[in-house]
């Protein structure tokens, strides 16, 4: 099922949560809505589900205008942030709920068989008789997914699906959700504030800030060519340096970088810690090391430029560095944005 959001607006009291968002989601796609809190991502998800109504604009499911269809008739599977499992029902009863209340009457045996099938799919065979309070957080998450899938939804919507789980469980469930998506091929939209989760899992990432889409694309597109300083900063650690653009070149101290299409004037340069290189001799940006942090994967160095800007970068663990040392930093890769 293809989903289309057409100029969707949502205001709560005076707070404009979603401002004129248009978005196309292809059938079978796995899309992440990524943004800081208050960026409107959950509101968008809830509007797609019918749990909130848009104040303006339209939402289409395929060719059908779904804007005013109530949630119970919309045919979406929704996985809530804290799962919203019915605490007084067993795991199996939770999964069967949608089939039992459906207008399409089903045989008891058919429902039981489908519940078994879903329990197998989410790898919870044998736990059907437990109550939600009696299983782990990761298991609850999978029950919530099975319950949402039981009604054969046209669209699967997940609100911060792994938000409440330990880091290890998150990573495992992430891989597993991708497998299930690939197996079932349901159009899936999920909300997260975790960049890694969005980039690892999604076919396409939609980055939101203050109620508008600031960039969308494949993980490769948004990582390799972030469209703005906000996206660059939001996607991961980045060093920021003041620069001056003159004739398509950005100058940071004595270093100059390609800055095609950036107008002359003040600019900012962003570079990931892994894209900085340290050497004892120039050329480069003069800096002195303030702290050295040793980590299992490498060695992180914190330094300060002669202009007073703080930098962080990674060096080989074998490289001898120490606090107070003077040297030069060069940039292997960087993004330049006009100010």
């Amino acid at each position, binding site marked *: 099922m293809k989903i289309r959001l057409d100029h969707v607006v949502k205001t709560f009291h005076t707070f404009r949560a979603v401002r004129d968002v248009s978005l196309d989601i292809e059938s079978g796609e796995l899309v992440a809505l990524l943004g800081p809190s208050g960026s409107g991502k959950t509101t968008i998800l809830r509007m797609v589900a019918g*749990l909130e109504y848009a104040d303006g604009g339209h939402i289409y499911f395929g060719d059908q205008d779904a804007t005013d269809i109530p949630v119970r008739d919309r045919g979406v*599977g929704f996985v809530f*942030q804290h799962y*919203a499992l019915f605490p007084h029902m067993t795991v199996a009863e939770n999964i069967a*709920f*949608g089939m039992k*209340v459906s*207008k399409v009457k089903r045989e008891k045996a058919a429902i039981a068989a489908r519940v078994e099938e879903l329990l197998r799919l989410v790898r919870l065979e044998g736990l059907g008789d437990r109550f939600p309070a009696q299983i782990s957080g990761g298991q609850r998450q999978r029950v919530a997914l099975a319950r949402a899938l039981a009604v054969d939804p046209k669209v699967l919507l997940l609100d911060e699906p792994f938000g409440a789980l330990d880091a290890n469980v998150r990573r495992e469930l992430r891989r597993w959700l991708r497998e299930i998506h690939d197996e079932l091929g349901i159009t899936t939209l999920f909300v997260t504030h975790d960049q890694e989760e969005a980039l690892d899992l999604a076919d396409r990432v939609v980055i939101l800030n203050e109620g508008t889409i600031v960039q969308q694309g494949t993980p490769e597109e948004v990582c390799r060519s972030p469209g703005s300083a906000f996206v660059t900063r939001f996607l991961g650690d980045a060093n920021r340096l003041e620069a001056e653009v003159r004739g398509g070149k950005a100058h940071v101290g004595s270093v100059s970088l390609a800055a095609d299409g950036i107008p002359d004037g003040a600019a900012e340069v962003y570079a990931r810690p892994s894209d900085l290189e340290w050497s004892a001799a120039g050329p480069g940006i003069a800096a002195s090391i303030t702290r050295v942090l040793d980590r299992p994967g490498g060695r992180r160095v914190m330094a300060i430029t002669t202009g007073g800007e703080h930098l962080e970068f990674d060096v080989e663990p074998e490289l001898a560095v120490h606090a107070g040392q003077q040297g030069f930093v060069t940039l292997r890769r960087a993004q330049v944005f006009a100010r």
Partner: protein
Amino acid sequence: MRRNVLPGLSLSLGVTLFYVGLIVVLPLVALIFKAASLGPADYWSIVSSPRAVASYRVTVLSALGATAFNLVFGLALAWVLTRYRFPGWRFVDAMVDLPFALPTAVAGISLTALFASNGWFGSVLSDLGIKVAYTPLGIMIAMCFTSLPFIVRTVQPVLEDLDPALEEAAQSLGGSDWTIFGTVIFPLLKPALLAGLSLSFARSLGEFGAIIFIAGNQPMSTEITALLVFIRLEEYDYQAAAAIASVLLFTAFAMLAITNLLQARALRYTARN
């Protein structure tokens, strides 16, 4: 048992045990002793006398009727107060506590004034051929009045705290309003509702002040058990008073035990493995 970090255990526990012992436990023990001093045969003949049995019947049946009414009305009131906003809802919310705040004797005489055959409601009802004051119906109305807040005030906070996501989840799975109420909301309210029902029923069984004015107090028909105890006292028949009072006491204990059991059952899904 971990070691106590905070001071004041012996003082606070001492005060508590002394007070509970002197004010609550001692009198109840005295009552049970007095009733026990009768011997089984005498005890049985007092508590199973026709007049006593008739008083149990009218008390229990009226209390059941009042509790059943309050179950529906109290739930509806709690629902309206948590789910809907309308002009004056704060006032209505505050007025729910009136039966708690208004002394029972005051409630008794004003309900009687309302429902007596020349009263505001009584005159209308008697035209319809319904007599309330001095009938078991009057007893029921007095019980409804005094016990209503129990159900509203136990259900209301649970209804307020109900996670909206549960309802949304049920809606997203296609449930209709009545299905969601019956399968999701009501079961989650059940423990609170049970607690409210049992408090309401216990209160109705023991209610005295609000009832005696409106009841008519005819032996064998509109005489409640609490009043029979009082009458036996006025006749200086202390043994009989003790025996019948002990029936009320044991009923109250039995209610407490049953309620706790039912609640534990209703809440068993919250237990971890």
